[in-house]
């Protein structure tokens, strides 16, 4: 039994035809189900808990990466499978090999389910990347060693799921680039790269860390870790977990 959650921005006129094509395809495949739209007035958690009790096994998110991340943070502890129909080009859908719009319905129908890790920053879960920088900082990795960044012109990227960090690597990839300003351009002078399960970032002045999936910002000090095998998600072919 499938339950569909549409993001609120899909109510706009320009998405009407896309949604119609998606719904027709779902009907043709025989995997259509109830539809609900995200809204700040609704307690979506309560609605989904009730649906799971009624027997819903799969919750399908229709929208973009922010929609998916929002829903995963709400229902991460419910033992269900998550599907994703991306509307438009999105980072997570490309990494999971899920095509756009009505083509994603076929992926959904194939039901290739993978148990994937998630990253966690304080109490928020994320799929892909965190971005920080611009301050002197200390990065503590697994409580074994720590890195000191004395240069303020640094760019820190912490990834759980990326093209260079495989699914089955139960670690976060940390990329630190030392940026050099050349007139109005910024070029990457040198980069460091390492892997760690748990990262603690501290800095003398609070540093902003942006969660790319959700366009949200968290301030240091912060703890980032990997939560292994956290959710079941329907992926495209060719993903090894």
């Amino acid at each position, binding site marked *: 039994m499938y339950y569909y959650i549409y993001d609120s921005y899909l109510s706009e006129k320009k998405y009407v035809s896309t949604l119609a094509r998606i719904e027709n395809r779902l009907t043709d495949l025989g995997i259509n189900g109830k539809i609900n739209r995200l809204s700040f007035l609704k307690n979506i958690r309560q609605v989904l808990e009730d649906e799971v009790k009624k027997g819903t096994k799969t919750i399908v998110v229709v929208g973009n990466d922010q929609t998916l991340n929002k829903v995963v943070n709400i229902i991460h502890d419910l033992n269900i499978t998550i599907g994703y129909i991306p509307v438009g080009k999105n980072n997570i859908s490309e990494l999971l090999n899920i095509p756009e719009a009505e083509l994603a319905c076929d992926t959904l129908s194939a039901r290739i389910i993978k148990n994937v890790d998630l990253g966690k920053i304080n109490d928020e879960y994320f799929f892909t990347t965190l971005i920080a920088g611009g301050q002197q900082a200390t990065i503590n990795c697994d409580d074994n060693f720590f*890195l000191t960044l004395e240069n303020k012109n640094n760019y820190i990227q912490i990834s759980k799921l990326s093209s260079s*960090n495989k699914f089955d690597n139960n670690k976060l990839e940390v990329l*630190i680039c*030392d940026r050099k300003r050349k007139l109005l351009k910024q070029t990457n002078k040198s980069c*460091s*790269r390492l892997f760690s399960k748990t990262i603690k970032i501290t800095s003398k002045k609070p540093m902003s860390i942006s969660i790319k999936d959700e366009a949200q910002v968290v301030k240091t000090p912060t703890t980032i870790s990997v939560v292994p095998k956290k959710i079941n998600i329907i992926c495209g072919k060719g993903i090894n977990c």
Partner: protein
Amino acid sequence: MFKEQPTNNETETIIGPSVRVEGDFITEGNIIIEGIVCGTVKTAKNLSVGAKSKIFANVTASNALISGEVQGNIKVKERLELTATARIYGDIKAGTLVIAAGSVLDGKCQMTKGKDKTPKPDFSRQEKITLEQKEDKKK
């Protein structure tokens, strides 16, 4: 975004020149160090130390190519190569050792691969020949 992102080895660790690492730096994959490391460096695979990097730590690796400064002991299972800019202040232990002209090694050196020594002959069983015996033999 990261044009200099390494893609040839998925578990390769790189410490850039602007980064300082303190603590037990232990990994399973290859390591490239261009910065400063204090503590311990240990890998099951290959280690490369850049010309401008400084390591204040004991180092353990399967293979190592060192071009910078290491203040500590180095233990390499297979091949250890010191380039012309390498400066080692500590003891080294390696299976195969390559030292380029101009490198500095200030410590003991021990080879670990079992190349058998020639056994020392037992001189104690040889009869002592005196000068008188020699003259008698000549006669």
